[in-house]
C-alpha cells in the first residue's frame, strides 16, 4: 500500500491533482487498492478528457461578422434601466394612497391595528379587569412621580386626583424618544444614486 488514506486522496483530487499533467504514483497506487477512490479517479479523468478534447478553434472571424451583429443590434432595443433598489422615486411618481401607505407611521398604525384585531379577546379580558389594575397602576405612577414633583409644592402631592392628573400630563414625554427614532430613520433612509448610475436611456 502507498500509505495514503482516502481523505488524503480526496484532498488531492479536490485540489485538482488528477487534472494536472501526470499523476502522482502514490495517489494512483492508493486508487488501485480502493474501489471508491478508483471510481472517483476514473470520473475525474473522464471529465478531464472531455474538456481536453477541445480542438483548436478557428482563429479567423468570418468576414462581415460585426456587420451582421450590428444589423441585428439596430433592430433590438436596449432594455430599460432597472431603478436600483432603495433609490427613492420622485414624490409625484406614485398615487397619493401608495405614498401614504408607504409612510412609517401608516405601517406602524397598520401593525398596531393588526395586533389589536389579533389580540382582541385578550384585550377585552384585560379591559374587564381594569378596575383592579387601574388602582394599582395609579398608585405606582403617583409613587414614582411624587418625588419628582416635590420641589413644585408639597400641597400637590396631597390630593390623589391632582397627583394622577400631573402623572398623566407627563405621559406625552414618553413619545419623544419614539419621535427621535423616527427622525433618525428618515435620515438613514436618504439614499443617493451611486456614481455613474443614471435613470436615463437612449433616445
Amino acid at each position, binding site marked *: 500500500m502507498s500509505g495514503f488514506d482516502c481523505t488524503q486522496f480526496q484532498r488531492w*483530487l*479536490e*485540489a*485538482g491533482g488528477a*487534472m494536472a499533467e501526470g499523476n502522482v504514483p502514490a495517489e494512483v497506487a492508493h486508487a488501485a487498492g480502493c474501489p471508491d477512490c478508483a*471510481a*472517483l479517479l476514473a*470520473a*475525474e479523468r*473522464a*471529465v478531464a*478528457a*472531455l*474538456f481536453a*478534447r*477541445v*480542438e483548436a*478553434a*478557428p*482563429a479567423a*472571424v*468570418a468576414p462581415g*461578422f*460585426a456587420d*451582421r*451583429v*450590428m444589423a*441585428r*443590434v*439596430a433592430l*433590438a*432595443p*436596449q*432594455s*430599460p*434601466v*432597472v431603478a436600483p433598489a432603495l433609490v427613492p422615486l420622485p414624490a409625484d411618481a406614485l398615487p397619493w394612497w401608495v405614498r401614504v401607505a408607504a409612510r412609517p407611521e401608516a405601517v406602524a398604525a397598520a401593525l398596531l391595528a393588526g395586533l389589536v384585531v389579533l389580540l382582541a379577546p385578550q384585550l377585552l379580558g384585560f379591559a374587564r379587569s381594569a378596575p383592579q389594575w387601574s388602582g394599582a397602576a395609579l398608585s405606582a405612577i403617583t409613587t414614582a412621580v411624587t418625588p419628582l414633583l416635590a420641589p413644585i409644592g408639597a400641597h400637590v402631592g396631597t390630593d390623589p386626583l391632582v397627583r394622577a392628573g400631573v402623572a398623566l400630563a407627563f405621559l406625552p414625554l414618553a413619545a419623544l424618544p419614539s419621535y427621535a427614532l423616527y427622525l433618525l430613520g428618515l435620515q438613514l433612509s436618504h439614499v443617493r444614486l451611486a456614481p*455613474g*448610475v443614471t435613470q*436615463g*436611456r*437612449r*433616445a
Partner: protein
Amino acid sequence: MDDRADPDHDLVLRARGGDEAAFRELVERHQERILRLAWRVAGSRTEAEEIAQDAFVRAWQALPGFRGEARFATWMHRITTRVALDRREAVRRRERREVGVEEEVLAGLAATPEAAVEGDRITARARVALLAGLSEAQRTVVTLHYLEDRPVIEVAQAMGVPENTVKTHLSRARAAMREAFLRAEAKHRGAVR
C-alpha cells in the same frame, strides 16, 4: 471591481447610453474570443457564429443594467455560455428529445477522436450537459480555466474575485461533474443489466 481597471470601461459607458458605434468597437474587440469560446462550447463553427451573434445582441440589450461588477469581457463570457445552454435547451424542447444529461455525457465520452466533426459535436453536447449542472460562477471559472486555458490568477482578475474563490469554484465544479459522470455510469450499468 474598479471600473477603471476594465480596458473597455469608456466604450461600455458610451454603449450603455445607446451609442451603437461604441458597441461596434466592443464587438470588433471581442468577436474573436467570443467566437472561439462559442465554438469550444458548441463544437461547430456554424453554431458558434449563431451563438456569438446572439450573445452580442443579448449583451447590447442588457447593457443598461450592466453595473461593472466584473469586466465587460467576463460578462460577455457569461452571456455566451448562457446563450449556448439556452440553445441546447431550446433544441431539446424542439426535438422533444428524452435524452438525459447522463446519456449525453456517456455519448460524449464514448465518441472517438477519429470521428472528427460528429465526434466534436457529441463531446461538445456532453460538455454543455455537464456545464448546465453547474452554478453560474462555477460555469464561468470552468470555461475560463479549462476551455480558454487561462491560469487561475487571470480568472480571478477577470472575475474580480480572490484566487482562492476561483480555486473553490473549480474544486466544487469538478466534484459536481464527477458526480454527474458517476450517475451517468450507474444509470448506464443499470440499463445494461
